């Protein structure tokens, strides 16, 4: 029976990177002091950019809405500080491109005290009103994709959500934000889970946590009230356990077919941070203006788990952590497997940024690339059962259109293939490049 349970709480394929979480796993979350400059990009969530509702020179309070949703797949933005809107212009973003953003200069004499927000009587809201409230609170998926949370909540007629799955796997190495949130704010997490579960009409809440966080599993189990239909499932430590389709497979044994969404198997998946943000908004009236960020890696002087106001430049965050050690070569936003390196320290921390990782030459030096030896390790690693080796070969020969026949768009760029490759071929990088070529290539009619 136990063996069967073990089989159930896993998924096929995947890799086992060293988790490196000991650096920050025991450090309590602390708050970063307020800085001077804040940059809030209008397009920091997936979907349509938000529309600014303030003008340059206007005074804004912490938590005040500064941009409204630009469409349905879009969320509101709120000012992370009390201060003055300096400029609405183009600023360098995480991807290196300049994009519209609201620059706010913090008022050095303001107390930065949040107005005692009024709890929202969520029980009396209809589902549509609830979805609208989540959108106006600016809540997005905090795991990294920054997909607006309310879009997931709005299920079409005839689809029923039976399970609310809360993702506390945190399978990316180094990151400990969800771990610390589960340890320090289990009540908020369970409160948010209850709000979401009741509004979705789900039967039960399942919190999936990897077994490398036994303390979090214990704390959550202790805080669950007997009458709450919540259970905590311990999951095998394996990357990418936190990918929503993998997690559904692990917890419920159901497979989400390619091109379908979790709701098609009656599940709604949300990150721990998202659920806490929901609790903060509905019980305390605080919109999404800050998030927990892990600052770790061999290149940072004092690693930490921090509450960072959104829009804080990475420079300020790194400075608070004692600065960079000599020999730092690369700073990654997000986890080391899926995060993106940043080219400038002036880019701000955004809603989807779970970590700022600092690496030195030793971790980032490129290893010599050898020819593919057709060993098949990438095929065994790919959790989506694609053929990464073939995709990489096609990408190298610039045969991008042929890659569609190998389902290149089912790739979520988890990086297992590159991690597994003994020939050091940058497989996921090649696939990512090809996907970008296929989606953004300029169509020329000569």
């Amino acid at each position, binding site marked *: 029976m136990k063996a069967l349970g073990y089989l159930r709480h896993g998924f096929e394929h995947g890799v086992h990177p060293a988790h490196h979480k000991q650096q920050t796993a025991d450090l309590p979350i602390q708050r970063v002091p307020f800085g001077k400059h804040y940059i809030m990009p209008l397009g920091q969530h997936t979907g349509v950019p938000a529309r600014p509702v303030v003008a340059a020179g206007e005074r804004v309070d912490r938590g005040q809405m500064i941009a409204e949703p630009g469409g349905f797949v879009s969320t509101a933005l709120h000012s992370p500080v009390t201060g003055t809107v300096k400029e609405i212009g*183009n600023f*360098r973003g*995480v*991807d*290196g*491109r*300049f994009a519209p953003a609201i620059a706010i200069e913090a008022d050095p004499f303001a107390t930065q005290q949040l107005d005692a927000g009024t709890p929202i009587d969520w029980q009396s809201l209809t589902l549509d009103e609830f979805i609208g409230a989540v959108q106006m609170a600016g809540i997005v998926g905090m795991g990294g994709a920054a997909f607006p949370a309310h879009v997931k909540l709005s299920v079409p007629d005839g689809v029923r959500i039976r399970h609310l799955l809360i993702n506390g796997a945190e399978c990316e190495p180094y990151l400990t934000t969800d771990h610390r949130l589960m340890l320090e704010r289990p009540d908020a997490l369970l409160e948010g889970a209850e709000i979401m579960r009741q509004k979705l009409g789900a039967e039960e809440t399942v919190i999936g946590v990897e077994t490398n966080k036994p303390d979090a599993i214990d704390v959550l189990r202790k805080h669950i009230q007997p009458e709450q239909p919540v259970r905590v499932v311990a999951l095998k430590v394996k990357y990418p356990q936190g990918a929503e389709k993998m997690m559904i497979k692990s917890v419920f044994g159901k497979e989400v077919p390619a091109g379908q969404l979790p709701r098609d198997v009656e599940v709604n998946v949300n990150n721990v941070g998202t659920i806490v943000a929901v609790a903060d908004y509905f019980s305390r009236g605080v919109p999404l203006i800050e998030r927990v960020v892990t600052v770790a890696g061999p290149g940072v002087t004092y690693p930490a788990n921090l509450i960072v106001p959104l829009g804080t430049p990475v420079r300020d965050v790194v400075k608070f952590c004692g600065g960079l050690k000599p020999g730092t*070569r*690369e700073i990654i936003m997000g986890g080391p497997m899926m995060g*993106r*390196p*940043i*080219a*400038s320290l002036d880019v701000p921390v955004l809603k989807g940024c779970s970590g700022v990782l600092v690496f030195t030459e030793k971790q*980032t030096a*490129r290893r010599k690339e050898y020819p593919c030896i057709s060993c098949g390790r990438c095929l065994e690693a790919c959790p989506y059962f694609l053929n990464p080796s073939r995709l990489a070969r096609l990408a190298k020969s*610039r045969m991008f259109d042929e890659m569609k026949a190998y389902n290149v768009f089912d790739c979520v760029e988890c990086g297992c293939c590159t991690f597994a490759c003994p020939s050091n071929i*940058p497989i996921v*990088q*090649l696939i*990512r*490049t090809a996907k*970008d*070529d296929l989606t*953004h*290539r*300029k*169509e*020329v*009619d*000569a």
Partner: protein
Amino acid sequence: MNTLLIAPAIMVGIGLFFGTVLAIAQRFLKVDEDPRIEATNELLPGTNCGACGQPGCLPFAEKLVAGEVEPGQCTVSTDEAIEQIAEFLEVDADRAEKLVARLRCNGGHLQASQIAEYRGFEGCRAAAVVSGGGKGCAWGCLGLADCEAACTFDAIHMNSNGLPQVDIDKCRACPDCVAACPRDLFELVPLSQNLYVQCNIPLAGEAATQLCKAACDACGKCAADAAPGLITMRDNLPIIDYSSGGEARPDAIFRCPTRSIVWLEREQFQDQESRKAGAV
């Protein structure tokens, strides 16, 4: 002896039967194909590049013979080949004006500011999808040679300044480099249009020049010096409108502080080595 003859006899019989059937079919079901299509196809370059708008060279040859397209629409063939086809088909060559690929950027290693070092795998699009490479300018050439790899005609080579140099004689104005560039910097320009703006930065003044020494700072001097209406400033960049009727003269570039508007007779960039050698 008898059995030995039966097998060959049957084979010969079958052969004769099908031979007759084929001979009859050849006679009554024959489809006449214009022999000119095959001959025209022979004269075309056979690269199947699609620059003419047809799926390949044979469909283009079919349309040529049908008179639906002009020989000049093949930008890849040499002038002589076009003349030959036109003579052969006895139509007007309608040779289009020669187009060449020009890069809307002059920010090589020597000009663009460097804010980070890109160490990912080589390729412009690869750099563009992570954090835009190491250059401070987010609109300019990444210098990682995607266009060189994409060019079918071996016309693009990176020069020592990290910019793609287009060999005008080899460039056939197929749109491979235009599609390959993740920053959309390549465009096909008639060789006769000498005035060219080689910058893509939408910023003005110091904001632009601190990112790149060769950036257009939107001073507008070129617009003031050119024939009225020829150059207009839009989004902090000069736009040259050849249809305005104003004569394009090299005067417009004389006061440009950053060499972002240039007068091009032939190749856009000189190799840095040869430029140095020429200066001495």
